[in-house]
């Protein structure tokens, strides 16, 4: 075959692939959102789920997902900042640093069900927290932490050298330079990365099945203490999240409208992830403009 014909055929094939992917992906999004919007209304978002009959909502599950996200971030952000700063600024080239980097690689590629098993053994059984939000948040920390450490490290490394050297040349200590010079400049990158990682936590299910549990007690949304068993804020109660709920109604649910509930819940999950993505992009651009005056 002459090269020109091959070239034409190849171009045609590549166009077909691109078209196929765009249509599959758009079709997927359109399918989820179209079916979801037929189910979503205020009642669906706020009311508790039913166990046997149709018409249940996803109120507690939505709250659980958000609360779990907040708790996870409270644990992960300080640790992630610390780890990222160490790797970007202090880490010497030695065995310990290599071990830290290998750990990051292992943790970020572990299957989430394995993280769930680990959480089941350590947080649920050994620590004795039972199926609880706290166990779930710790399990999510296991694979959110390496992501965040990477984000912090990369953001710190992208700060121009001159700024750091100017600060050090004025006699300011390395630690103070990190806190007062490097971190503020790296902040936009860190925030954008954290929001993107949050989207991943929000949709996680496999790691939560055996840590945060597959049930949610009847919550009393007027009780905001941290200790009563029906309080939404109690970190020691079991908490089924939105993603786990989608899985549960499909594989072991008894409600007749499982399909519709899963449709609505999927659409909300996808919309939230879309929102996190768009917000992260917008925020990154906004803060870049503020800081660079361009």
């Amino acid at each position: 075959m002459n090269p020109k014909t091959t070239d034409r055929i190849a171009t045609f094939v590549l166009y077909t692939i691109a078209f196929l992917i765009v249509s599959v992906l758009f079709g997927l999004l359109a399918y989820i959102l179209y079916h979801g919007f037929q189910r979503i209304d205020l009642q669906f978002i706020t009311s508790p789920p039913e166990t046997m009959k149709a018409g249940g909502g996803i109120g507690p599950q939505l709250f659980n997902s958000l609360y779990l996200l907040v708790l996870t971030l409270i644990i992960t952000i300080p640790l992630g900042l610390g780890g990222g700063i160490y790797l970007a600024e202090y880490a010497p080239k030695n065995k310990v640093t290599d071990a830290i980097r290998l750990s990051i690689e292992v943790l970020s590629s572990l299957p989430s069900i394995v993280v769930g098993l680990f959480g089941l053994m350590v947080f649920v059984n050994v620590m004795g927290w039972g199926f609880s939000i706290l166990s779930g948040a710790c399990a999510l920390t296991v694979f959110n932490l390496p992501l965040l450490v990477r984000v912090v490290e990369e953001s710190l490394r992208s700060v121009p050298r001159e700024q750091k050297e100017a600060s050090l040349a004025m006699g300011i200590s390395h630690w103070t330079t990190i806190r007062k010079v490097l971190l503020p400049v790296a902040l936009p990158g860190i925030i954008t990365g954290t929001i993107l990682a949050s989207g991943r936590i929000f949709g996680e299910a496999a790691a939560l099945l055996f840590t945060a549990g597959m049930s949610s007690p009847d919550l009393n949304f007027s009780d905001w203490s941290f200790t009563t068993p029906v309080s939404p804020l109690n970190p020691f109660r079991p908490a089924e999240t939105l993603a786990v709920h989608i899985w549960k109604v499909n594989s072991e649910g008894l409600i007749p409208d499982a399909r519709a509930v899963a449709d609505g819940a999927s659409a909300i999950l996808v919309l939230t992830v879309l929102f996190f993505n768009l917000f992260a992009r917008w925020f990154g651009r906004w803060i870049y403009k503020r800081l660079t005056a361009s």
Partner: protein
Amino acid sequence: MRQRNWRTEGFGRGITLFCAAILILITLSIVYFIASKGLSTFFLNGVSLTEFLTGTTWNPDADPGKFGALPFIMGSFLVTVGAALLAAPLGIGAAIFMVEIQPGWGQKILQPVVELLVGIPSVVYGFVGLSVIVPFLRNNVGGLGFSLLAGILVLTVMILPTVTSLSTDAIRRVPRDLKEASLALGATRWQTIWKIIILRSSLPGLLMAIIMGMARAFGEALAVQMVIGNTPLVPKSLLEPANTLTSAITLNMGNTIAGSAYNNALWSMGLLLLLMTFVFILLIRYVGRKGQM
């Protein structure tokens, strides 16, 4: 003044090292806990390792229990390889399209869509597979619909964004002068793409993209569990139901008694998943080192 500086310096270094060291601690304890539980199947319950890895009968409730996990192992590998075979040409093709053929709308439309899809939760992929792919296969191709093929298709769509975006990065790193030299010598666009970009410059990067996608497919639990049918038999065709390591753990971990041989066998499956993670990391490191040469 000098002493105070020294003290805050030590404080900063110490506290950040502590945070970083937690990562090592978590990794070591994961390996320790999973391994100690996973190995007790063989040491405490006396299941033979050969039976576990090569036996095809899975009936842990029988007396004596049969612990042949080969159907699960085969299932995991089959869906992973199948998904990689489908996702690799599609993902790499899309990446070439975005970088070389239509950088304009390729980057404006394809890239944001792909990036958004990387973040879509895997349960949603499973659910769409359950409500679209399974009925489609049942009505048009035959069988129950819950099948190896359904698992492969769901995983393909799931890892496609990962493979595409990593391949795009790899192709973008190819130096411009190489391409221009090739075009200037009279090579067609496809000759340039095939000989220069794919075979010479970005092969390690593309391989890495495929391995990352495979790692994700191998470890995926819920999306596969929802569509694969969950029968502990080695499938004879693509349309037969199958099972994977991850979905066996997902379904049975909650229903078995901790400490029983059945339960420990599930932990051994977890240990296998952990070991495969190390294999994937070693592969990625090996390919990465090749790429630097």
